[in-house]
């Protein structure tokens, strides 16, 4: 399934002529695992109150989410090629007004975790058992609001909230350690009161084990630092910051799809 999702991502962005392949490909395995192995939801009833919630805070990773939602039957797979076009339901950055299954709009980084905290608090108020998952990027951890939220989720003892950091080590203009170093990430989140897990974000076994472990942690939220590779799966996009926010040409897309074959 992850391979299929990556193929969709390449085709969608190439057809659109713009978009963010690098961070979509790095997050693919995490989002795929959540929707196909972990979360409970009903694609034909997106508003089902007991569904698990996934919030894509790194809104530029929208193509990965759209591909997974389409494959999960929220909307037809054929619609994926409308990405970024006028009147499409698939906006450049994820937008809850447009797309069935998108829990929250994003695109101004650093905001999804706070929203997730609100969702998790509502679960407690309503005595519902659903889980809330929030996916952040590592560059996003440079936003101040992330650390406001990091402080408050353990304060509210939200053990129904799990955060994943797509730690692909790159952001728009280069390596994160050169732009604004976020390390040591693990120690920072631990110091803020989170249960932390570090995994290879491209190993399904490790991803699934981490989500299972998160469910057993009581009294505090869990954060999974998933070490990933930007552009994962396409040799010339891997660790190539050029493909943070650039669409592949038709020829590049063809090569990419061959590799993902």
């Amino acid at each position, binding site marked *: 399934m992850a391979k299929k999702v990556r193929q969709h991502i390449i085709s969608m962005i190439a057809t659109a002529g713009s978009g963010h392949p690098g961070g979509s490909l790095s997050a693919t395995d995490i989002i795929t695992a959540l929707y196909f192995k972990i979360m409970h939801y009903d694609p034909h009833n997106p508003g089902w109150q007991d569904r698990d919630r996934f919030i894509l805070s790194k809104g530029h990773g929208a193509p990965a989410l759209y591909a997974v939602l389409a494959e999960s039957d929220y909307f037809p797979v054929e619609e994926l090629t409308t990405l970024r076009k006028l009147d499409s339901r698939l906006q450049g950055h994820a937008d809850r007004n447009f797309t069935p299954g998108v829990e929250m709009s994003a695109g101004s980084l650093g905001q999804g975790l706070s*929203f997730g905290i609100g969702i998790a608090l509502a679960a407690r108020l309503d005595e519902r058992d659903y889980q809330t998952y929030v996916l952040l990027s590592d560059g996003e951890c440079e936003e101040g609001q992330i650390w406001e939220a990091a402080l408050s989720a353990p304060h509210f003892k939200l053990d129904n909230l799990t955060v994943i950091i797509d730690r692909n080590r790159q952001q728009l203009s280069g390596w994160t350690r050169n732009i604004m170093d976020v390390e040591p990430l693990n120690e920072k989140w631990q110091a803020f009161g989170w249960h932390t897990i570090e995994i290879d974000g491209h190993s399904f076994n490790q991803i699934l084990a981490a989500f299972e472990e998160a469910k057993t942690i009581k009294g505090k939220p869990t954060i999974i630092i998933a070490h990933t590779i930007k552009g994962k799966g396409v040799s010339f996009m891997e660790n190539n910051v050029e493909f943070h926010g650039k669409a592949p040409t038709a020829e590049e897309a063809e090569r990419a799809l061959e590799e993902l074959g």
Partner: protein
Amino acid sequence: MTVEASTREAYGRTLIELGKQNKDIVVLDADLSLSTMTHFFAQEFPQRFFDCGLEEQNMIGIAAGLAASGKIVFASSFAVFASCRCFDQVRLCVSQPKLNVKIVATHSGISVGEDGTSHHAIEDLSLYCALPSFTVIVPADAIETTKAVKAAAATYGPFYIRLSRPKTPLIYHEDHHFIVGKSITLRPGKDVTIIAMGIMVAKALQAAQKLATQGIDSRVIDMHTLNPLDAEAIIKAASETGAIVVAEEHLAHGGLGSRVAQVVVEEKPVPMSFVNLKDHYASSGKAEELLRRFGLTAEGIEEAAKQVVQKKRSFLPGDA
């Protein structure tokens, strides 16, 4: 004698009433609950109150998450922090998705007084009126505050309600009929219309009394809702009185004056005059001292009304 009452206390008391009626009412604050008066609700319903600490941006996101889960969320802070500090969060997480979040901001304007320039929210209305999905209300007194807060709870969608630090004169009685977006003509008049909001409404009424003794018959409108604006009342005032003064405790641009002028220019151009802070930041001082310094007084409105009537007469010779 003028009876005064606190708009923020009215807010705090109303929240308790709403909380008793509806278990989906949830209240957030950012370490200012003793001043915003949300502490009444916190004492009564501790499970449904969340102090977000000094994290206004995070508070707005949390409010949006709760609202997306079916809660009616009131989020409070001082107006300066509830607008400028978290504007991007309000835009992305509340306005664009049109979520059911009510931002009730206290300590607005220069009547905050001694705390100084950093604490004077005089840009907030411009910011909130720029957001298409927001209903923006500035109640004139404590009774109108109670009505506005209840209306916000009963109406789906984002609201910004702006309250004051000092007590303000009571204008209305308990039977006050409040409708969102429908202004109130407090005094009829044919020579000039004074359109005011918040603490300026009581001053507008005082000014109208003084103007009457000088032969100027002033209409006074409480334009409590800035968005959606009551264009009908504005056009009627422009047509029937031919001159308009707008009085507000806000900078010149983007607030009530700008909004009324837009309607007047498009529908019924007449001379206008503005009582506001122009382009100035204030300073520390007592609320009354600052309001006097910047002409946000009954006398300031009176003067502006005389000027605009003069202008009207010079535009239309013989129409006196």
